[in-house]
């Protein structure tokens, strides 16, 4: 295992829920029609007229303590280099234990039978490129990089900005962070 810990940081104050990340992902990863590996959530809080809204681009959290990996009976779901959670299609039986285990409902059954989800676009990252969603974002609200590298954008953002993770009570130690 390498020392790299890939992470994504998303600025909820810049996100405008334009859906470009969703479409870019679908095109890049040939996501079957009707499915998505990333999606948008708009959470409105308060009582009219005192409202505040938070826009989030959500996806697999590539948890360091991943319940999907623990639940997988065949080793298909695994933590790959860089701490990225991936599914080996050849080992997947489509038993759906990982879907039941994921607190983020980030997985789905691909029409071909295996379970599919966000890969942090590792095929692009290996070539030194950014994930498709990050590259396309028109407000530049998303950052991707190595959390263990203090000079990376993600490490810098988390040092300097208030942030949160989703469903922290489930103890999954996510690697997708939201600036608030």
């Amino acid at each position, binding site marked *: 295992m390498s020392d790299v810990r890939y992470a994504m940081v998303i600025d909820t104050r810049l996100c405008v*829920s334009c*859906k470009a990340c*969703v479409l870019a992902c679908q095109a890049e990863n040939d996501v079957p029609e*009707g*499915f*998505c590996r990333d*999606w*948008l*959530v*708009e*959470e*409105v*809080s*308060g*009582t*009219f007229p005192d*409202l505040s809204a938070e826009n989030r681009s*959500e996806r697999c959290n590539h948890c360091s303590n991943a*319940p999907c*990996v*623990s*639940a*997988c*009976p*065949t*080793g*298909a779901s695994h933590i790959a280099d860089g701490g990225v959670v991936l599914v080996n299609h*050849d*080992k*997947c*039986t*489509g*038993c*759906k*234990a990982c*879907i*039941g*285990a*994921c*607190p*983020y*409902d980030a*997985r*789905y*059954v691909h029409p*071909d*039978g*295996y*379970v599919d989800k966000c890969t942090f676009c590792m095929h692009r990252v290996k070539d030194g490129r950014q994930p498709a969603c990050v590259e396309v974002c028109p407000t530049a609200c998303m950052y991707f990089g190595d959390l263990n590298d203090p000079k990376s954008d993600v490490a810098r953002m988390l040092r300097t900005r208030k942030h949160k993770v989703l*469903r922290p*009570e*489930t*103890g999954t130690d996510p690697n997708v962070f939201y600036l608030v």
Partner: protein
Amino acid sequence: MNTNTAEIVTTRHNHLIDPHLHIWGWEIPAYLFLGGMVAGILILTALTALRSGRNPGSRPLRLMPMVALGLLSLGMAALFLDLEYKLHVFRFYLAFLPSSPMSWGSWILVLVYPAAFLMGLTLLEPAERTAVRMWKPWRMLGMTGWVDRLFAFADSRRRGILIASLVAGACLGIYTGLLLGVLGARPLWNSTLLGPLFLVSGISTGAAFMLLFRPRDHEHRDLVRWDMAAIGAELLLLGLLLINLATGPQTSQAAAQLFLGGSWTGAFWALVVIAGLLVPLVMEVLEQRKHLNPTAISAALVLVGGISLRFILLMAGQESLGVF
């Protein structure tokens, strides 16, 4: 989620995931029910044979381990139907992953089959053994010698085989509960109490299933006593589970609400608690106290309760996330 959240809008609409999880249909609760019942049958048969040192007096009970194997195979067929990538089913047996209850279950099933089969052989009476030996396929294949050797092996290791069946049955019963109990993402399921709950429910439904075959009087009495004890334990565990949920964190309290006023309240209390546990318990107590003629109604109700428990827990549990 903030407590003052007014509205959540999501663009995600993945099949089987949204608006709430429904990845598992009838196949999984059917398997959980059959697996639990088989666990109960194996445990009760092995315990009875171990305690008395004799084979059951009535033929249906002697044949029960073989019937259990048939039921378990039906359950496994349901499991197979649930797999989305059926050609990869062999992958379960190319790995053992200790953190995955499903992996444990796959290997427990491998242990259950030979243990139950050998127990089934050793329980047979001489006339039944002759019938097995004379079965045409064995003779045609020239395998009668092998059958004799299997009988001899089963008899020489009788005690060990009965204990192995008891342990395999207990593992099977507990694991069917832990399969759901370890899923921290679903608050309704996320309790290890589901392990013993499914085990005692399996013992209760196993006893009820055996009661349907009109065993002899003393066997009937013993099975009814086992059933009453298991129903009592099941009521206690269900109560503890609900208290655990209702006094837990916000997500657990929301899960408890599914049974305490929410959408599954009527089905849970009517089918599982009243029709499946309380009514048959009262009927069995009256039958024992007043020496009434036994009927199949209480056993049938226990089976309905066992099926309902698994269907309702599985369906309700898939709704028990509630936040994006």
